[in-house]
């Protein structure tokens, strides 16, 4: 990347401004994810409600990013690295907004689940999966700010762990449901939660791809294999 400053210093301020908004969004999403995970584990409906409310802030920031980017494009006509910066900002804000929605969804399901008997044994795995995604998000945002392609690639690889954890949880929920049909409603909610967390991982991966594009000008190779096998795995029939 260019460390040099623009002759028009206002252009530097514009680019710094939109990137600061991204970091602010990133911070709110990290908090939303960890709060949502804690609310789920502790059956804390108050905290879950707060996560749902705070999602509005994330949405508002995304809109602010979009209008700022539109203005910068209109006024500055960015090229080369500057162009890639504003394009990546736009894309990343979209990823963060979706992650915020998933956290909100966790909050909603937590409120519903707190009315039902707990499903034992799956809480720890869900918590580890959510924590993993949150660390990945933090690292992805660091990679973005540092323009660190190596770190971005590393985070991208870690997403397969998330996929594997999701596959394992999927089997576990299926087992619970087959054992006792009264578990079905709760397990379906938990399954959607796990799926949402898995989707969060995909958005983190997408952020990392933007880092690679931003620095190199090319999208990364499709080197990472999708690990969600729940739709094709014939072994599922034998569970």
């Amino acid at each position: 990347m260019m460390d040099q400053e623009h002759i028009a210093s206002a252009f530097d301020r514009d680019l710094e401004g939109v990137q600061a908004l991204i970091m602010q969004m990133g911070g709110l999403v990290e908090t939303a994810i960890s709060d949502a995970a804690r609310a789920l584990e502790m059956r804390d409906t108050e905290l879950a409600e707060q996560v749902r409310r705070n999602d509005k802030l994330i949405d508002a920031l995304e809109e602010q990013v979009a209008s700022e980017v539109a203005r910068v494009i209109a006024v500055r006509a960015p090229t080369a690295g500057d162009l890639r910066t504003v394009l990546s900002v736009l894309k990343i804000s979209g990823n963060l907004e979706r992650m915020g929605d998933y956290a909100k969804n966790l909050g909603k399901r937590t409120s519903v689940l707190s009315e039902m008997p707990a499903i034992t044994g799956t809480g720890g795995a869900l918590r580890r999966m959510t924590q993993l995604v949150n660390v990945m998000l933090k690292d992805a945002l660091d990679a973005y700010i540092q323009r660190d392609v190596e770190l971005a690639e590393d985070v991208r690889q870690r997403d397969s762990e998330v996929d594997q954890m999701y596959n394992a949880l999927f089997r576990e929920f299926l087992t619970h449901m087959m054992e006792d049909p009264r578990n079905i409603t709760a397990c379906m909610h938990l399954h959607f939660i796990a799926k949402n967390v898995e989707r969060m991982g995909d958005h983190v991966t997408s952020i990392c791809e933007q880092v690679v594009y931003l620095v190199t000008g090319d999208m990364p190779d499709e080197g990472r294999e999708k690990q969600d096998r729940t739709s094709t795995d014939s072994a599922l029939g034998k569970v």
Partner: protein
Amino acid sequence: MLDTTQTLLTERTMSKDIKISAKGVDVFYGDTHAIKNVDLEIENKAVTAFIGPSGCGKSTFLRCINRMNDTIDICRVTGDILLEGQDIYAKSVDPVQLRARVGMVFQKPNPFPKSIYDNVAYGPTIHGLAKNKAELDEIVEQSLRRAAIWDEVKDRLHQPGTGLSGGQQQRLCIGRAIATAPEVLLMDEPCSALDPIATAQVEELIDDLRQNYTVVIVTHSMQQAARVSQKTAFFHLGNVVEYGDTNKIFTNPEDSRTESYITGRIG
């Protein structure tokens, strides 16, 4: 479906034909070394933009292509410039004939001190492009229309060209340059004195011209270079630092000096 894909592939892989080829070109003004060992191949029927900081040699190099530098006493050009494989600096080449094939629009508008009509009719007349007055009238009208100035001058064709505004003079000079139907059109900052409407009209004209002509344009507007050209050459201190597809240069240039320049950083 397959056919379009095939065509796309062929278009991509086919090496484009080269209209102008410069090899090891150096230009000196007395002791000033203005162009340093430049190699450049300019594609046929495409628009090539020359960009770079003031004084880097864009106009100098452009003037080599139709031997305009011959008119500057202290200027010395070495190396080869081939137009369709033919050395334009060969003894046998008549610079006046060459300039009919390689037309030029200058940085500053320079209409002849004659009527608007005569400014445009002059070239076609001396090169015998019109059989009669009606044909000449037609050439003048078409040239001025394509230069996006016809409506403003059609009622005053016999008034002096020097009486027009700066922007109008520049469009008149563009009309004059295309009146002889050159194969190559060299344009040195053709829009620097034009308003946005006239600029858009000239850009439209350039895009239209590339169906039949090879256009080389010097511009200080990065957006203009990005809009009108297919190839861009970045000049810096007399060297061509980077030359390639315009799309590539404006999204992901190879050289950090190119990036600094086009993004408006201190280079």
